């Protein structure tokens, strides 16, 4: 998010910060891999309820997943906007992405509260433990993403994001899309597939 020009000449011809972001995302694969692995290991192993089949509300979560998916579209439209110098488009799409992200988060907050009412907590059983920690970590990533988007939005509003700085949007986008694809995996493996 700094105002630095793209790196001059680099050994690979790739921008330093973009390479850094990709390395970060590669290592994030291991982070989410571990969390998902723990969920899968303990799936169906809870000694007491409530169990996933008692709680999951597939239509609701599908809408959530859809919201996050669409936020990826608006995110990439924000990038396309700044790349052609369309400041107004940039602001609109950034704002939409942040709002969709917030919508997803409120959906998650609602879901957590509902589950909690039904008696599921971090300590109630293995399902509660692995579910809350996995989706909670994902939610924390989305939260950070929203903060980044809002920060960029403020910068855009002040006119401090010019066409030449589109890399800032691109990097935020890479992060955002990654968080989105993690949810694609979670949605299928955790919600839709239940043995």
């Amino acid at each position, binding site marked *: 998010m700094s105002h630095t020009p793209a790196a001059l000449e680099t*050994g*690979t*011809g*790739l921008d330093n910060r*973009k*390479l850094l972001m*990709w*390395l970060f*995302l*590669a*290592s*994030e*694969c*291991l982070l*989410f*891999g*571990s969390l*998902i*692995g723990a969920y*899968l*290991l*303990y*799936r169906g192993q809870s000694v007491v309820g409530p169990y996933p089949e008692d709680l999951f509300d*597939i*239509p609701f979560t*599908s809408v959530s*997943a*859809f919201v996050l*998916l*669409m936020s*990826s*579209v608006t*995110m*990439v*439209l924000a*990038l*396309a*906007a700044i*790349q052609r110098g369309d400041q107004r488009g940039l602001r609109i799409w950034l704002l939409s992405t942040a709002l969709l992200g917030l919508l997803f988060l409120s959906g998650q907050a609602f879901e957590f509260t509902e589950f909690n009412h039904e008696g599921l907590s971090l300590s109630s059983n293995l399902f509660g433990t692995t579910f809350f920690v996995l989706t909670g970590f994902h939610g924390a990533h989305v939260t950070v993403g929203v903060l980044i988007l809002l920060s960029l939005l403020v910068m855009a509003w002040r006119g401090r994001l010019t066409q030449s700085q589109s890399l800032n949007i*691109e990097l935020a*986008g*890479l992060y955002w*899309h*990654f968080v*989105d*694809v993690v949810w*694609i*995996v979670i*949605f*299928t*493996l955790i919600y*839709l*597939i239940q*043995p």
Partner: protein
Amino acid sequence: MTLAESRGIKGPTEREAEAEEVKEGAHPGPLEYVKIGLILAVITAVEVGIYYIEAIEDVLVPILIVLSAIKFTLVVLWFMHLRFDSRLFSWLLAGGLMLAGILMVIVLSTLGGRLV
């Protein structure tokens, strides 16, 4: 770390040509993004739809996995531009994913867990 040796890294002479190429191939336009977005929305709808079809219960799991893999690939290739960007980035992501996947399978199999 065969990643380091991957084709993404070139000698100094090849670098400039590569850099040019990357710029030219730049990114697709908004229209294409919206199209991808529509496809993603449709796949999600299909996923949720078939979830409720009892007739295909036996093959539901593989179908769901394939569909989500398609979604994953679309986002990664278009929205994250791996299709147009340096090979190195693709290698990094693929490396992380494969490592995570393989390790997960081994751990689960030794502890009596199942992937799906």
